[in-house]
């Protein structure tokens, strides 16, 4: 099963974090990601720029709207994602609780439903749990 770990936390500038805090954060993430790779469960790891760099786009109201900033203007933002391939939720939880971001924020674990592989959508979750239009 594939799971995406969404790292939600309050954004901090380098000034707020301090040089040392920044270095420690980097070291912790490096150790964590190396361990994921070593275990052969890492699919991808992305740490994102602050949400101030976000742009949103929508046509939901009939016309194109492009806006600066994140989708939801909340105190906590998505700071990164890890995609891991593990047997079940227990294993995903075991990794999520070791994620450095869990120390200062919240890690959300979401299973993949379908995945686009070689020109087709492939179900990775049981069929009955899929949304109707994808069955």
């Amino acid at each position, binding site marked *: 099963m594939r799971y995406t770990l969404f790292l939600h936390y309050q954004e901090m500038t380098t000034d*707020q*974090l*301090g040089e*040392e*805090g920044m270095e*420690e954060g980097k070291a*912790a993430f490096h*150790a*964590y990601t*190396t*361990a994921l790779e*070593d*275990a052969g469960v890492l699919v991808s790891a992305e740490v994102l720029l602050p949400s101030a760099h976000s742009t949103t786009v929508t046509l939901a109201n009939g016309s194109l709207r492009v806006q600066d900033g994140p989708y939801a203007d909340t105190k906590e933002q998505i700071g990164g994602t890890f995609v891991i391939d*593990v*047997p*079940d939720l*227990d*294993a995903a*939880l*075991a*990794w999520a*609780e*070791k994620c*450095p971001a*869990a*120390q*200062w924020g919240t890690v959300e674990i979401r299973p993949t439903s379908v995945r686009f592989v070689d020109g087709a959508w492939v179900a990775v979750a049981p069929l009955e749990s899929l949304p109707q239009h994808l069955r």
Partner: protein
Amino acid sequence: LMSSVQAAALQAERAARASYGRLLAILAAPAGDIELAEDCLADAFQRALATWPESGVPHNPEAWLLTAARNRRRDVLKSATHRTWLPIDAAPADALAVTTIDDIEVDSIPDRRLALLFVCAHPAIAADVRTPLMLQTVLGFEATQIAQAFLIRPGAMAQRLVRAKRRIRAARIPFIVPDSVRMPERLPAVLEAIYGAYAIDWPVVAGTGVRDSLAYEAQYLAVTLAELLNDEPEAHGLAALISLSLSRTAARGSADEFVPLDEQDTTRWDADLIAQGECHLRRAHALARVGRFQLEAAIQSVHCARAATGRTDWQALRNLYDALVAMAPTLGARVARAAAIGRADGAECGLAALNEIGDAGVQRFQPAWATRAHLLAEMGRTEDAARARAKAISLTTDPAVRRYLERIGSTL
């Protein structure tokens, strides 16, 4: 792993730390003002650094430092800025007297660290800041070092520590050792906080190396507590537990290689730490009041006995785990009990004990699956064992442990 040079450096550091904790406790006790005591002590240490190289180290450095710090405190308390927020009458009388070094007898410097430990683990102090507070006030650690060990932002840790210290002063948490009536309700928090420094449930994956150094500090705190609180069996139990567990550090392997207890080379166990642990265990036993830490220490002692006897007494371990589970039925203890039963009475009995654990958390508890795999393999249920082992491996985030599990899986 520590070399002898590192060990010597650690000893020297500890001597300085012992002074630090003793002096801080004395300076902070009268008004409960840890922050002021820290500032005065820092000032005294700075003066020492500036003057001792020229004038020579005084024959009683601790008395010198205490005098310098007390005089500094007097100056601060008298200063105008301080007066604006603290009425001068609120300062204890002795805080305003000029101290000379002759006022202090070498042997009369009291050890108030015990009271300080009880202040740090007071019920009014948040549980998650008790261990950091002990590390800072009793051992003189910087907030940054503590933050590193707990994987918390240094700023956040400093803030928590300051908040706790202000609370101690504002609420006037007394610097006293609880009497025998209060002791049973107050001691567990002190023991837990010290144990917390030893058994930080490491948030990161293995191989960071910080763990060893804090474990030695926890051992120092536990031994200090046991010596100061001589007739409390659980204090000796904790000192024994940490000493005995720590004795096997060098034989446990490295970040790349995990060596399970059974396969450890006993000549690499630290005989001094074992002797120290056994001594505390005997002293605890003589007080004839059994407790959780003593039982855990006794379990460690049975394992350590293999260094002398060449064998492990699994019957004794099973009995100790029975007693421990009756007293503190943690998930870890119950799984370890099942493993001991498996060794003492056979794998089937062990598996039955494992299946009896009803806790929902057992499904995602790695040691439970590793134990199950081991028991099933012993029973010849190879396929079931492989499945359990795969589950254990999927729950293992430590690379060395995972490699070990994969290795034993491939030899079956």
